[in-house]
């Protein structure tokens, strides 16, 4: 039992390192997001390994860290979704910047209806 | 070894063989469409035979239904996905 925790714990340690390396070295923002996710997965798996070691009373793991993992995974997904959306919007805007580097992007028409 | 065990061993082994066939085909076949053909064998037959082999071991009707549902879902997914991938592959054509 403890073997799985140690094995995947070590695997998680390597994942964090790999992600960190990719996060620093890869120039593309999307690759940085993916690398950051790899770091996150490493942290989560490490946490899961610790939870697994705390298993008692017929439960395979300590339920408190496992429950926090569920919250963590959902929040990590939301952060990634926000980051990816931000990046896609940036690519939309930056495209016009690349095509005409000297001309500022046209301002949005001020007459647009805004609803709250 | 009981008859049920024998059945499981036979069906799961056959399923594993189709995963072998699918993987080798995916690696060795020359172009996207033939590789797709190999992939669907692993999806359909490999998973299907594994499910078949495990069916006598489940407890309760619900467990069995879930196993069959997994196989049917995999069939549906693989049928749809292989068509979609094939369309992309045909349009983009072979490229190195």
């Amino acid at each position: 039992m403890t073997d799985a925790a140690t094995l995947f714990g070590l695997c998680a340690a390597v994942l964090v390192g790999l992600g960190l390396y990719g996060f620093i070295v890869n120039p593309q923002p999307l690759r940085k997001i993916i690398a950051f996710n790899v770091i996150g997965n490493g942290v989560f798996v490490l946490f899961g390994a610790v939870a697994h070691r705390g298993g008692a009373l017929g439960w395979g793991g300590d339920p408190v860290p496992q429950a926090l993992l569920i919250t963590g995974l959902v929040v990590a997904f939301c952060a990634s979704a926000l980051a990816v959306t931000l990046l896609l919007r940036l690519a939309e805007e930056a495209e016009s910047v690349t095509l005409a580097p000297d001309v500022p992007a046209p301002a949005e028409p001020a007459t647009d209806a805004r609803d709250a | 070894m009981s008859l049920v065990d024998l059945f499981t061993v036979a069906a799961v082994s056959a399923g594993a063989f189709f995963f072998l066939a699918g993987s080798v085909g995916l690696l060795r076949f020359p172009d996207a469409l033939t590789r797709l053909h190999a992939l669907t064998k692993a999806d359909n037959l490999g998973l299907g035979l594994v499910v078949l082999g495990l069916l006598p071991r489940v407890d309760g009707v619900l467990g069995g239904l879930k196993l069959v549902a997994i196989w049917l879902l995999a069939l549906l997914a693989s049928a749809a996905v292989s068509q979609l991938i094939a369309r992309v592959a045909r349009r983009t054509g072979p490229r190195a």
Partner: protein
Amino acid sequence: MAEFLLAAALFVLAMVALGFVRIMRGPGDADRMMGAQLIGAGGIAVLLLVSAATGTGPIVDVALTLALLAAFASVGFFKSAADAPTDDAETADRP
């Protein structure tokens, strides 16, 4: 019996690991998606085998979730390829 099922799971895992080689080699995006698809199908089979070997029923629900969403990434792939008809090697190399 449990040993046999786990051995079968290991074998299936080793086989779908070859799908990774297809992801690496490509050459087309479609080929890479196929590699991921194979790993997904193999993952479902491994889950079912582990569930039967360890007698953990709820693992089947995990397999059910994966089976349900197996097509999802590929549908996204198809849509993005369909949305951008010229999206390919040609445009990737455009200055």
